[in-house]
């Protein structure tokens, strides 16, 4: 009796599922070794076993079962997801939650935009105040420098006389290190697109006037002009002059001096 013949006795019981664990494992190992005859015999024995189903007493399922099955199958064929309820069955509290979330989202967006505008306004105000502070600091520095020039004993004071006797005279102070300060009251505003310009007239014969700052009096005619770094030293300067020039100033005077003051 060959080994295969020995296992052939197990074929029907194996197909029936009646082998105990040990025999089943041994037989499956035999099949796994590639016994084609036994494998084919098992396939046929399974068919014989399947025929035992006809021993069951004849009966039929209820129509309700078919109805349920066909309903499920039709729904799935239409693409309706299993166990998924239609959207209309979403409970009210869920809609309320969605609505609340929507309102909160809109409010948050509006609030963020409002805060952004506030921050922008505050930033602009801070920048303006910063610029104003810088301007005040600058003016303060100029005023301090002017005050120093006006009070320092090293400063040389002189008068700049107007060419037109109807105009006010100006006072000038020149400190060798701090610069020149020119002051006056009721100084007329230059014409449109014109500016006042300060000139330093050198002592050297044939020398041309040295251009300095352009400036305007304030709305009340008050003039305080500070020249921190004059283009010429006081000892080499014969006089200061002020002319009216095109806006932006000129390299050389284009009009007669309106004020002239001898320095030395």
């Amino acid at each position, binding site marked *: 009796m060959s080994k295969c013949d020995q296992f052939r006795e197990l074929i029907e019981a194996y197909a029936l599922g009646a082998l105990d664990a040990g025999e089943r494992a041994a037989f499956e190992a035999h099949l796994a070794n590639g016994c084609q005859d036994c494998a084919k015999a098992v396939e046929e*024995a399974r068919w014989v076993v399947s025929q*035992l189903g006809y*021993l069951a007493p004849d009966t039929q399922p209820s129509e309700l079962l078919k109805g349920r*099955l066909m309903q*499920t*199958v039709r729904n799935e064929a239409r693409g309706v997801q299993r166990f998924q309820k239609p959207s209309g069955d979403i409970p009210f509290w869920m809609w309320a939650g969605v609505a609340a979330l929507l309102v909160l989202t809109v409010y948050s967006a509006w609030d963020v935009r409002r805060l952004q505008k506030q921050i922008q306004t505050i930033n602009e105000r801070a920048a303006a105040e910063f610029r104003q502070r810088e301007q005040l600091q600058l003016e303060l520095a100029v005023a301090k420098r002017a005050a120093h020039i006006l009070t320092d004993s090293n400063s040389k004071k002189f008068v700049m006389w107007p060419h037109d006797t109807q105009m006010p005279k100006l006072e000038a102070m020149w400190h060798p290190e701090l610069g020149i300060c020119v002051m006056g009251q009721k100084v007329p505003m230059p014409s449109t697109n014109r500016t006042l310009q300060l000139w330093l007239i050198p002592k050297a014969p044939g020398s041309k006037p040295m251009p300095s700052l352009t400036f305007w009096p304030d709305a009340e005619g008050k003039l305080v002009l500070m020249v921190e770094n004059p283009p010429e030293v006081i000892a080499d300067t014969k006089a200061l002059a002020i002319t009216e020039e095109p806006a932006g100033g000129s390299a050389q005077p284009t009009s007669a001096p309106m004020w002239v003051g001898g320095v030395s």
Partner: protein
Amino acid sequence: MFLAVLTPKESGEVSRDAMLVHQLLQRDVDAFEQLYDRHSRIVYALVLRIVQQASTAEEVVQDVFLQLWRNAGQYDVRRGPFAPWLMALARNRALDHLRLKSERQRRREDQSEELPPIISVPRFEQALDEKRRAEQVRALIGSLNPQQKRAIELAYFEGLSHSEIAAALKEPLGTVKSWIRNGLLRLKEGLQAAT
């Protein structure tokens, strides 16, 4: 020779089932309904015989047919004719249901098969209507001695092993093994002789 196997195309009924299963792959509801009408009676009878409760049997049958609908591709015509495959699937599901409630479950889990294995149709097999096939099978099994018939039924409908059947019938293990093997061989020969 008995070992020779027919292809499903050699039977009109088999090819009809194969065609309907193929249509299931295209989500053909009518094909599903035809398959249900053709096989639900024997499937339900088999499952009810195993689980012994109508409502449970309908649950199992519903699961079997929904599995067929949702996974029609699991049936491979090359693995054998459709009806025995479906009956094997239904038997496995029904026995699984029994095992869920049984102490035997843990011991037999590895015997449970989600899909039935290959089933080959012997050359003598011809398409018979269910009623005629049932008469043949009942006559052949009915001709066995009552204990032999009972041993086969315990194995098939209750999923008992040789040892469990021997214990249930209070018969020697070797006797039970012989009863079952000889009974199935006699069924095979009887079905062959009837064609």
